[in-house]
Structure formats: C-alpha cells, structure tokens
C-alpha cells in the first residue's frame, strides 16, 4: 500500500492530509480509508487494499491513481511551490522526471530533483516580464487606437472631399465632351471624305478594313515600343518600391495581386510567358484603332484636322484623366476604410508598412494586409509567400492569426501560404519564420496591437505556497 503524507500550509496553520498516492485533494473523499472503493465510473466495487496495489481493477483506472497499472489513468502531481498537474499513469516510474516535485518517480531508480520552486521562480520572472510588456504594450495599443480613429476620420473627411470634387469633375467632363464633339464635327466630315478617296470610293467607312490595317500597325508599333520602353519585367533585380508609393499609385485591376510586377516567378514556374502576355494587354496599348491612325499614320496629315478640335480633345482627355484619378483615390480610401483592422482598428497602423527578418539564407518580408515574401540573401529573385487572405485565429481570438494565401505555386504542390501568429510585444517585429510543411510558412510577429490589459499577476492556479 503506497501512502504518502502531504504537508499543506493552508494560510497559517499546517494541515496534514492523508490520501492515496496520485489522488488530488478534490477526489480525496472518494478514497475512504478501509472502506470498499467503488470505481469512479461506478463499474465495480473493490476492497480498499486494491487501491494502488499495482494492478488495474477499474476500467476507468481510478483504483490506481498512483501507479502505472492502468492504461488510461492519471497521476496527480501536487507540485507544492508550483502548479499542480495531472500526468498520464504511463509516466509514473518510467525513469523520466515529470512532476517537478519528483513524486512520479518513487520506484524507478531515477534521481529526480524537486524543481518546483525553481520553476516557479522562473515562471514568475517570465510572467512579470510578460506582464510588463503587456502593460506597456497595452498603453501603446491605446495610442494606436486613437491614431487609427483619427486616421479613419481623416480618411472619411478626405473621402467626402474627394467625392465632392468628383461631382465637379464629372460635370466638367460632360461639358468638355460636348465641346469636343461639337468641335469635331467639321473634322469628321473632312475625314470621311478623305477616306472615301483613299479606299477607292467606298461609300461608307469600312470599319473591318480599318481594324485589319490598324492591327498590323499596332503590332509594329508595339514591338518598337517594347524594345524602347524599359519594361517592368527587366532581368535585373526588380526595383524595390516603397510600399507607401505603391499604395498611392492607382490600384491595379487585379485586387488580389497588388504587386503584379514584382512577382518574378521562380525557375520551376512555367507560366512566365503568360505573365508577359498579360502585361502586354495592360495600359497604354488599349487605344482605339481610330485614335491610333490619327496619331500615327502620316497619310492622315495633321492638316486635315482643325487645331480647335485637337484642343477640345486634349481638354476633354485631361478632364477624364483627372476623373479617373479621383475614382482611384476614392476606391483606395473606401478600401482602407472598410478594411478589418481589428475591433478598435488597432492594427490600422500596420497598413502600408513592411517588416523584415533576415535568417541564414533568406530575407523574409511581411507587409501586413498586403503580402509576405522571401528573397535569398545573396541574390536571386523574390518569392511570393502569400497575399493577404484573412484573420484566422481561433474563435474568440480571431485577431491573433493572419493568413496569407495564394503565393507562388509549388511544384506538384499547393500555392505557398503563410500563417502569421501575433503575440503581444512593445515593438512591431517579425521574430521568427519557419516552413513546417513544404510551402506552408509560419511567421511569428509581435505587435502592441495584440496586447491585452495587463493580466493580474495573482492568477489563481499559480501559487507560490500552497
């Protein structure tokens, strides 16, 4: 029969409580000395001397709280001076010290030291440290919340302003369009006349023929332009654009890919060509054939056109461009305003920032709400480890984990993705990165924005003295 004496200091007076080995105080009443014991699941009743006799009689393991006899039992470590805990019965007398009070190894020959006080001291230290951090972090967080609030208000004000100015611009554009069309009327007639001659007396403008001619011209023109204009997809390292600039720039059509130009695919990627094709369709070349001809074909001599019409056109285009810019601005502002920056917008300050961590081989870069990337330290192209997906913390703590998805694809595998775990810290820093599974990255990130109100140091389950 394995009994042990437990000395407990309950406040001032010392109390001795006798109970079978491995039984927590709370279960003490079930183990009444010298009375038949009923398994805690009620399955059977056994003589008291079968408790802790190193043979499993109860299916629930309750007759052997202090031995390893039952496969599903638990052993209670009192751990005076630290935190009491349960360990699986299989850890009792297995030669490995599990309880800090060493009570689990009473018959294995293992030499275990009582480390509870030391553990408590360390834990207290680290708890204190954490509490300090949390405290300061929480203060910082309040500032962040205030800033976010101000920032939001500013943006809303700005949005209002811009929206108003948009109305003016729209009016302006409409006015100019009318002016332009009026100015163009004589010109149009002249042009049709000219075309008739040019195309051998065709009554009407044959648009199909135009398109054919135009597409040939376009092809030639485009190829020249491409060789002359520096492409964004140069072979050299992609220009490091500061995120601030990027944000101010018009957001591209593709919302999920805010930095398409940076995205130089890796060797294993086979869609490089596609990317280029897409680039070709973008931007400047989307001009109507007619305008093109006007600009490029010497046979349509400028003299055909009135300078008045040209001026009207220019003014109109200018106004239109201004309108587009305002639209972009509105879109950006709306996007930012509607973004989920946490319950009190405390994460708003991370928007349009980037944080780097350099490891042995790579420089990792986290641009919150935007994307995560990895770049070899010693040259080589950048790999997209995921673009902003969602908050992905567990229920009740959704804002503790960020998920970045749909990064560069892996060979025969998924697209790269990154999970960012946020912990409370005074600084906003990426503290570690790893790739636990192929192409699934894990990043640890500290920020004051996750700090909770300083926890009470006197947490109930940690007791210096019992």
């Amino acid at each position, binding site marked *: 029969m394995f009994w042990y004496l437990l000395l407990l200091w309950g406040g001032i007076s010392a109390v001795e409580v006798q109970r079978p080995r491995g039984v927590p105080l709370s279960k003490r009443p079930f183990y009444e000395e010298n009375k038949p014991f009923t398994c805690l699941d009620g399955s059977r009743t056994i003589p008291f001397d079968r408790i802790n*006799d190193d043979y499993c009689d109860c299916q629930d393991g309750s007759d052997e709280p202090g031995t*390893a006899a039952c496969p599903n039992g638990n052993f209670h470590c009192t751990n005076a001076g630290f935190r009491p805990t349960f360990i699986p019965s299989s850890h009792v007398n297995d030669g*490995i010290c599990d309880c800090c009070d060493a009570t689990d190894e009473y018959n294995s020959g293992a030499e275990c030291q009582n480390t509870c006080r030391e553990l408590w001291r360390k834990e207290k230290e680290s708890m204190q440290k954490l509490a300090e951090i949390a405290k300061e972090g929480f203060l910082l967080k309040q500032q962040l919340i205030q800033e976010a609030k101000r920032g939001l208000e500013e943006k809303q004000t700005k949005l209002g302003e811009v929206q108003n100015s948009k109305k003016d611009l729209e009016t302006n554009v409409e006015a100019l369009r009318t002016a332009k069309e009026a100015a163009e009327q004589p010109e149009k007639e002249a042009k049709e006349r000219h075309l008739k001659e040019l195309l051998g007396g065709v009554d009407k403008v044959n648009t199909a023929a135009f398109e054919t001619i135009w597409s040939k011209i376009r092809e030639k023109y485009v190829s020249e332009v491409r060789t002359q204009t520096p492409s964004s997809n140069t072979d050299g390292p992609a220009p490091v654009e500061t995120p601030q600039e990027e944000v101010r720039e018009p957001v591209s059509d593709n919302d999920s890919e805010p930095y398409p130009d940076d995205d130089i695919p890796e060797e294993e990627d086979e869609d490089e060509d596609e990317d280029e094709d897409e680039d070709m369709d973008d931007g400047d070349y989307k001009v109507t054939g007619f305008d093109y001809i006007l600009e490029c074909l010497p046979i349509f001599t400028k003299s055909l056109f009135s300078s008045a019409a040209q001026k009207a056109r220019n003014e109109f285009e200018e106004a239109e461009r201004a309108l587009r810019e305002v639209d972009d601005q509105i879109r950006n502002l709306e996007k930012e305003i509607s973004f989920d920056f946490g319950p009190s917008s405390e994460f708003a300050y991370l928007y349009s920032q980037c944080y780097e961590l350099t490891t042995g081989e790579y420089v990792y870069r986290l641009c919150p709400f935007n994307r995560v990337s990895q770049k070899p330290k010693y040259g080589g192209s950048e790999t997209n480890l995921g673009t902003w997906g969602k908050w992905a913390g567990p229920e009740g703590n959704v804002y503790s984990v960020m998920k970045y998805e749909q990064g560069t694809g892996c060979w*025969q595998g998924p697209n790269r993705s990154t999970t960012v775990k946020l912990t409370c810290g005074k600084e906003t820093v990426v503290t570690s990165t790893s790739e*636990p599974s192929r192409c699934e990255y894990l990043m640890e990130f500290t920020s004051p924005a996750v700090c909770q109100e300083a926890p009470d140091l006197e947490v109930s389950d940690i007791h210096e003295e019992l």
Partner: protein
Amino acid sequence: MVPVLVVWLALCLSGTWAVDRSNFKTCDQSSFCKRQRALKPGESPYRALLETMELTNTRLTLQLINDNNKVRLLLELYRLQGNMTRVKINELKPLKPRYEVPDVLVREPPTEPLSVLSQDENGVVLSLGVESQRVIVSAQPFRLDIVEGHNVLMSLNSRGLLAFEHLRMRKDTFSYKVTSTVASLWDNIKRVFSSQAEPEAENKEEADTAHQAETTKEEEEKVEEGMWEETFKSHSDSKPNGPSAVSLDFSLPGVEHVYGIPEHADTLRLKTTDNGDPYRLYNLDVFQYELYNPMALYGAVPVMLAHNTQRTTGIFWLNAAETWVDISSNTAGKTVFGKMLDYVQGSSETPQTDVRWISESGIIDVFIMLGPTPKDIFSQYASLTGTQSFPPLSSLGYHQCRWNYNDQEDVRSVDAGFDEHDIPYDFIWLDIEHTDGKRYFTWDPHKFASPKDMLQGLKDKKRNMVAIVDPHIKVDSNYKIHNEIRSRGFYVKNKDGGDYEGWCWPGNAGYPDFTQPDMRAWWASMFSYDQYEGSMDNLYTWNDMNEPSVFNGPEVTMHKDAVHGSWEHRDVHNLYGLYVHRATMEGLIQRSGGVERPFVLTRAFFAGSQRYGAVWTGDNAAEWDHLKISIPMCLSLGLVGISFCGADVGGFFKSPSPELLVRWYQTGAYQPFFRAHAHLDTPRREPWLFGPENTALIREVIRQRYTFLPYWYQLFYHAYRTGEPVMRALWVEYPQDPATFAVDDEFLIGRDLLVHPVTEEGARGVTAFLPGKEEVWFDIHTFQKHNGAQNLYIPVTMSSIPVFQRGGSIIPRKLRVRRSSACMEHDPYTLFVALNTRRTAEGELYIDDGHTFNFDNKEFIHRRLFFSNNVLSSVNVAPEAQFTTKSWIERVVILGASKPRKVTLITADGHKSQLDFDFDASVSVLTIRKPSMNAGEDWSMALQ
C-alpha cells in the same frame, strides 16, 4: 552544371505519376539478356567429358565441352552439410579470372562425402549420402538430375539452356590482331611445356585437335551487336571484356508455386514470364515504381523457393551481376477445367515449373537446397548466408520519419507532440536536409547547431534518432570525408582510371569503393564519436541511395565499366549496397567497443544483407495498391532471410487520405519495421494532424504494437537463431494446404498471430482465410473464437485491424504502454494463453537487456511456457544463461477456458497460494489476477 540538374529534375519530376519505364532496360535492351533469351531449348551444345571426372572425398570435378566452339568448362559438384548440393561452373581456362562473389557466404560451406554408385559411358550416378538421394550426371547432352527414390527433385540443363560466354579477345580492332598473334605464339609455347607437365598425355592429341577446331570455329563465331560495346539512351558501356554472360535452366517437376527473388513490386507467388520480361535483379533507384511487374528495384536476393504439398526446395544463384530470371510452367495457361480434364483422363503430364537464370558476368555458383520442409530451407539458407541480425528492442518500436524534420526546434516540437497526444515512439529520423550541404557526417550549422543537445533531449525521454548517411560523397576540397577518401585512393574509378564521379544529392559526387576491406574499415572508423561530430550513442544510421544511385548514370546507377580494384562494376553491382550497409553497421558496433547492437536501415541489399540490419521497400506512394503490395514485398524478403522489413507508412510520394493513413498505420503496426515517412513536398502528417478521431485510431494501433513488443522481440531472437522469417507467408506454416499457397493479403507473425489488414478504401468487411483444419483462432480484440480452414467474413469499422491469435499458443505482452520501449523495460507481463481443441498451449518468453551483445555471453532469460492438463508452467530452456529482470507476471488471460473452482500458484520454492480470477462466460475468457511471480523464475499455476 546546374542546368543538368534542372533537366534531370524536369525529366524525373515531370507531372505524370508513374515510373518512366524508358529509363530502365528491358531484356531486349540488355544485350546479354537478349542473346541468352534467344537460345532455343533442346539444343544444348554441352557434353560432359566423363573421363575427366575426378572425385575426392568432398568434391567432384568434371569438364564440360561446348561442341560448337570447343571451349571447355569445369564443373564442380559438392554435397554440403544440411541437405544441400552446390554446383559451380567456370571456364576451365579463362582468359582472365572471372568474378566469384566474396563476403556473402558466412564461411566456406562444410561438405559431406560423395560417392559414385555407378558409371557408364552415358553418365554417372552419385550418392548424396542418406535418404536415397542421388545425382545423375548425363554426358550428352550434359544434364544433372537430383532424385530421391523415384522422384526427380530438380534437373539442371534439362532444357539445354546452359550457356557460358567464354572470355575472348576482341577481333575487330588493331590491338586484337597484335595480341592474338602474340597470344597464339604464347599458346604454342605453353602447350609444349604443359603437355609435359600435365598428366593428360593421352588426351594431348585430342586436345590439340580440339584446339585447332576451336580456333577455326571461333573465327566463325559471329560478333553480335552489343557484345563489345553497348549503348543505352545516351550512356555507352565500353565492355572491355566483351561478352561474359552465364545462364542455366532448372526444371522443377511437380512444382506449381515458386517464390522469392526479391525485390519486385509483385505478388508473393511468382508469375510465369513467357509473355513479358523476365524478373530482373539489378539494384536500381526507381523513381515512382510501378506495381505488379518484374522490373528491378532497389535490392536483389537471387534466391528462389519452390513449393508443393510434398516438399520445399530452393535455388540460390550466387552471382552479383545484373541477372534475369525466366519462369515458365506447363500448367500456367491451363484453366481449372483443363487441369481437371487432365486428371480425369489420367493422361496429364506432371505439373512442372521451369526456371532459367541469366547473369551478365561472373560464374555459375548455385546452391540447391533440398528442404524438405520450408523451415529446413530457412535453416539451409541461413547456414550459407547467416541469419537476421538481432536488433535492439527499441528499433522494433515505432519510427517517425519525414523528409525532413527541418531543425532542432522542429524535432523538439514533434517529440513533444507525441507526449501531448500520448503516442509512444522510439526513433525520430533526419533525412538529407540535416546535413551541411549534403555532406554526410555533418550537420547544418544553422538548423542543427547543437546536435548533442537535441540528442540529449531525446535521450532524456529514452528515445533515439536516426540520421541519414548516404554513400555518395560531395566532391569538395573543403570536406574532410572527401579529402580523405580521395587521398587514400578509396573512390571507385572510372574506366580511364580517374575517380568516378556522378551526380547525386550534393551535386557532383564520388562513390567510395566499399568492396575494398580497407575502405570499409576506414568508413566504419568515421562513426566513432570523436570522428562523427555531434553524434551520441542514441544516434543510429540510415543508408539510402546505395544501389548506388547516380542521377546521371545509366538507369540512374553506376556505369558498368567503372572499376573496383581489379573488377568491373558490372561484376559487383548488386553487392555494393550490402557492403555499404555492412561497413556502416560495423562502424556502429565499433564506436561502442563492440558492446551495443547497431541499427542500420538500408535501401539496397543482396543475399546476406540480413546480417546487417533492416531494409525497407523504398520510395512507395500514398496509394491503396502500395499499401497492399507492402505485404507480398515483405513476405518475399522474409522467405529469403531478410526479416526486418517494412514499407513507408502513409506512402512516400503523394499525400494519403486520412482513411489510407489510418489503414496504413494499422497494417504497419503489424509488420516488422514500422516507420512512417513522407516526401519533402507533401504536407505534414504527424499522427495528430488529421483530427481527434484519426489521432485516436492511430494512437490505438501504435499502442497495440507496443503491447506486442515482447513477442516481436522473441521472434527476432528466434530469427537470429534459426533464420526463420518473422513475418511469414501462410504456406510456411501450412505447407500441405494448397489454399495457403498464393495468399498474400494476409500474413502470420511468427506462427501464432494471423493478420488480415484492411487494405480496401471504404471497406465494410474483409474475408480472412483462417488456415488449419485442426486450428482455432481467437480475435485478439474480442476474444471471439473461430475455427480454422474457413474463409471468415469480418465486418470492419475504421478502428478494425483483424488479428487472430492461434489456439495452442501463449503470447507474452506488456500492456502498460509508455513513451518508448525503453520506458517499458521493467514493466510486468500479461500472458495470453489461447487454448486449442486439445486444451493445450505453448509459447516462449525471451528477455535480455534489449540493446547489448551480452546475450551472446548467455545473459538472457529464455523460458518455455506451456499449458496442459489445466496447468500452466514456465520452465527454463536456457539453464546455462544468466539474467535477472525486474519484470513480473501481472496477469494471465486464458482464451477458450472454462471456469475453474480455484487457481493455485506454485512458485519455485514450492510455496502455494490461491489467486483471484475473473471469468467471462460470454467469451470463455479466464483472467487470473496478479500472480506476481518474477518473469525469470520457475512457476506453475493449476486450474482446478
């Protein structure tokens, strides 16, 4: 060189899922196989020259002559102890020595006397000792028949396919013309002298004329394509020795079932090869191998077993060159009806299986094992090549592997995960990424900065680690291992004499010549704790890629004209992996001063590899068919002595569904080597990553494994002593029941556990064959009793792994499952006594320290447990051995019992005591509570 790798990767890793067959030769693309296979049966040019016969007490020699080219061969015939016959055929006077495989036989096999019973001009009859066994040597055409009484057991060259490509000078080159002139001059001179020296004066004339004929004939012999040079894909084989193949046919009258010749991803029972390629034995790194075909894989054991209800025989073809095995059968094409018709008409020919072995070089050296029982074959083969090494107990536990555990923190957290989820494991593995740039014996300085701390952390939990050490060595002048090998001249050489270099994981790599004893000794010394930095005694080794794998070599292996000392790689290819494994194992033994048992896993193997450790079935895939094939693949290995076999649990390539993963754990837990492994590109799959239900299922079956560790350990001890396989084909235990002969969806562990894993997706039931007319089988989970000789339908759920204990057996188990096997060392035993219809049972209990060689010094407990007449007793079967254990008997569970009035324990000192017990009448199970005697003592227990 980077583009080369990229191209290789692109080729090999191309999206389609399957082996790229075009990377590997068919028989037609292997010129010697094509030449030999083109020979027609019944036209043997070989004649035995009976007058040259010489018989000493231990051997008979006889010359054979090829009547087409007059080249003479020397036949040696030995009667070996233990009912074996050895037949060796070599050229009588080869141009240069031909390779004879060293280091595979554990010793020169002891012989028994042979005697001539009768002789005439047509042949000789020799007695093979007792049992009325004889060998009949027929002269023309030459053939050997081994007979017992009136039965022919096996015939050699009965189909006349003996072929021996003699070494010759090349004729189409300038150098040949010079050397041949010199040679013929030299021959003439030699002949003049030898005719005086040799006592063959009377044959001189004949020999001379023969020689004339030979030379003229030789002139006519056509030079076929591929004899002197051979190209496969972009690789050319210079073949400086020209054609050198050997081949021989064997007929097995009365045999319809042949087994063995691993490694192939095929059924247990070998198929006939008439309509396709022969089975190929050539150690190859096959990327994403295909199932159910005769293509070569990572290892080769040239041993075939033939079985019928009367007898088991075996053929061990000791040749390490590329080898092809053809199998044909006169009943293969027949339907059951056809067979019946034959039987009714009484006109049927006896069923017969014909086998033909073809090797590219070396000699014919074949051991004919005559059984007669399967266990006799195991002991005969073990007497030639040794038995399974006795592994440390911990290596029979569960192994957690992945390419790769990324860093020390990863290792720590996976280790902690096992504790958190209360799943035992013994070994965590590190694949190639743990090294500093694929330089073996080193650690990545960032990811594994303090390996000893990591190893100590594992050791604190009584756990171990395996780190990979492959035989390709990065060519890098800053790498100590490379510099030493280069400066000592230990690398394999290319045909031009420089160090052979090939492409493998580290990029450009050299391949140490493991065939050289001094190289192996040096390699072994690299495992000492002061040489292998960061290693500790709980770090063990894994040899991968030792076929050897050469990414840019022909068929992803070494060029055949690479040079190992005085031999070509062609001669030694299939031995390379065995030597790597051996040298590594010797290193692990030496580092502990010969005290600790090693554990080394290898991918490539040959006959005899069982002496060095464990093997696994290589890079399989997460597919249901790969789960299924793990059974016949390990069964086939077990038949040829390699018991410590397993397949990557979960499948290496691709990702298993949770269902497949759970089923694979359930199967793997009942196979000898139990390791989960996964490819770098697959998502993580530690046992707890598939939701609580699947975690619980996996936990449960790993825990089952641990409860059976005493039985596994005892079986490995038995395998070490006898050569009997641990994981057994059913026919081995039921050799007279033809219903068992082709079973390979279930298996036996020892002879007492029958396992029928669930290997079908979405299975709701399996039909298990319970063998043995006299047997009863007890479901180990429900204790339900079933009769033998029936097909039993068993409904299954996801938690089911149908396992049965044979009535008549006693299995000791340890039910207190802990974190690792070492944590369970002193735990008590529960004896599971399953009664047969005669209400008897027997079993064994083997105990030692679990990790040293002290068992060789009689430090162990070996007891026989038996139950009869209602008394269960434990008696010492090794009284000369000494060992003490803290373990005791905590429980005896008797299956198929009736309720006793009382149970009395009588201990060694005669003390009697009454024991408490429970009886469950619904399943007739008697549980005797806490008898408490020490497991090493004599005792008995009476039920009254």
